[in-house]
């Protein structure tokens, strides 16, 4: 038989390999055959048992599987979808009837800085300007140590210290709760920066990442769309927002387009929530009604619109 011929074990014990070396004696071959046979039987038996076991497990899972259990990440995506739907609902209301708030779950935050990065990218932020840093604090002593991450956007305070100090009314609180800046009016005195107890405001000093290099890359001169306007920074041209105070806007330009703020959609741990506090059934309203909630520096009476779940 063709197959047998081609099998080394079928060869004559006295036959030689092409290179002249002798094959093993017949007794060795017999032992090997027996060993292989037994091994195959053992493996086959185990496989069959395993197959039955798997089927049992699957049957159990099927019984337990209704309704379907999504992995944690998908559950978070459903939260994103819920927030997006609630955002669209809020946009249908008059502006004065909305109140945008943000909730940050510090137990979920993993300190990945993806919110910082997405914010920088969304708003095309230059050097020296940051809207959402994530201060990291180590607590405890070895071996009992932990990190606390506190993403820190503008607090959009209900009693903002930065608003009354502006000498030219370039910053104010809107009816929807956001605190904004008019870049065309701001004189760049930085009084609001000095007055903010959260260090949430930064100044645009006109710097570029590519300064002192042969070329300013194109991404640095593409516009950002803060406040739904086209703001383009150009090296050597001193026009707003260069020279202005800048801060987190809760991504108002995205909200107006029905999108959640960039930091919310990119949060790796699903730790950032956003929505309309005036909607009693909204996710943020639910979260703010839990005992874990707190706000930063509440003793100052600034009443921030950013809540933390600790």
């Amino acid at each position, binding site marked *: 038989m063709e197959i047998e011929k081609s099998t080394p074990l079928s060869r004559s014990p006295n036959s030689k390999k092409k290179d002249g070396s002798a094959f093993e004696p017949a007794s060795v071959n017999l032992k090997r055959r027996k060993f292989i046979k037994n091994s195959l039987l053992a493996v086959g038996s185990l496989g069959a048992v395993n197959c039955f076991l798997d089927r049992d497990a699957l049957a159990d899972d099927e019984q337990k599987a209704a309704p379907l259990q999504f992995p944690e990440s998908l559950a978070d995506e459903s939260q994103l979808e819920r927030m997006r739907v609630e955002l669209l609902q809020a946009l249908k209301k008059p502006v004065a009837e909305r109140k945008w708030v943000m909730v940050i779950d510090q137990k979920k935050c993993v300190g990945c800085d993806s919110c910082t990065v997405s914010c920088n990218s969304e708003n095309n932020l230059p050097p*020296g300007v940051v809207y959402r840093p994530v201060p990291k604090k180590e607590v405890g002593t070895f071996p009992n140590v932990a990190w606390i991450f*506190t993403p820190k956007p503008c607090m959009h305070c209900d009693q903002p210290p930065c608003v009354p100090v502006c000498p*030219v009314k370039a910053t104010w609180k809107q009816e929807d709760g956001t605190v904004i800046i008019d870049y065309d009016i701001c004189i*760049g005195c*930085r009084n609001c920066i000095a007055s903010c107890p959260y260090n949430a405001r930064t100044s645009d000093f006109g710097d570029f990442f590519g300064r002192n290099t042969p070329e300013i890359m194109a991404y640095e001169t593409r516009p950002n769309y803060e406040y739904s306007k086209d703001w383009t920074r150009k090296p050597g041209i001193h026009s707003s927002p260069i020279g202005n105070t800048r801060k987190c806007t809760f991504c108002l330009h995205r909200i107006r387009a029905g999108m959640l703020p960039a930091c919310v959609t990119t949060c790796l741990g699903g730790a950032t929530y956003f929505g309309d506090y005036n909607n009693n059934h909204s996710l943020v309203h639910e979260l703010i009604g839990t005992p874990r909630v707190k706000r930063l520096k509440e003793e100052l009476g600034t009443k921030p619109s950013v809540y933390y779940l600790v």
Partner: protein
Amino acid sequence: MMNKPQKTILFTIWLILMVWGLIGVFQRMTTGELTLNYGSYIPWGLWVAGKVYFVGLAVGSSLLAWSIYAFNIRPLKPLARISLLISIATMIAGLLVILFDLGHMWRLYEVYTRPNFSSLLAIASWLSLIYLIYLMIVLRIDLKSGRQIGDVPRVWGWIGIFIAITFSGANGAEFATMVSSPYWHSSIGPVLSIGGALLSGIALVLAVSALSATDGGIDEQIIKILSRIVIGLILFVLVLEWSEYSVAMWYGRGEDYASMSSILFGHYWYVFWIVHLAIGSILPLFLLLWQPAQRLVAGFSGALVATTYMAVRLNHVIPGQVTPTMRGLQEAYTDKWLTFEYFPSPTEWAIFAFSVAVCIALFWLGSRILPVGSLKSIDEGGQ
């Protein structure tokens, strides 16, 4: 009395300041804010401290004039015009240095066209303009009153006192009302602002009037009185400072403890202990107690107090910003503009030098053009 070599030396110093300053102005105008060392976490630096300093000098020196008018202090009347001239020159220097601090300096007019009067900065800006105009008006009234210096109706003095105290208080309150900084947020701030203004301003008048030879208007008796006023003010300000520092430091706790510690024992400890306390307070105190009527000693002492008071202004403005509002903030996002450490850049020093040079030039021109009386002198070595 000033001889030619002395005048040459002074002129050379002024010229260096002016040239250095013009280089700074050029840099500021061509590179914007890129060559500056303040940032987003320490947004106020040398220039803001400089503005507070110059405005303090202006208020203090003019308060002397207002008091002379309001209380009709005859022995000090020869000082009235020169005090107002010093006040005008320093006020303009203060406005100049703060102009360069603005991110959009050409929008300064907006403070006057669309002011927000809940802002102490807006109030202070308006008061600075009003005060400057008022100073010019009263100086003109004094100059028009004939040969007698200080012959101005009392009411001008009373109004001047009111505006000066309001203005200086507003400048102090600009910091004291800020909840962001426990160090600034102090009820003693406005009082210390007025006290510091009086001390530095009157010390400057003492320095100028004692060191410049006069045409007889300012005699040793006046120098002696001024010296005693400065002695009293040094002690008054030291008591205020003791109150401020001891309350914060006594038990070593509290939110402003960190800022106070940085002033007293931090990287720039010498600014407080050496520049302000030793050279700017204790040394002139002893000198003035020792020789209150000796022109050179009194003038030198006044100059020490007046110039080193800039250290106090720096120690008020900068340490109020060096403590992060949250642990880990500085490490959260590292950047040249996002640090809690600050030392003025060469451009900042240059602009400050420019303001000083402009101030000196204005005063010199004013004393040449206007018959401020007692100052015939500075360039002519009057007898």
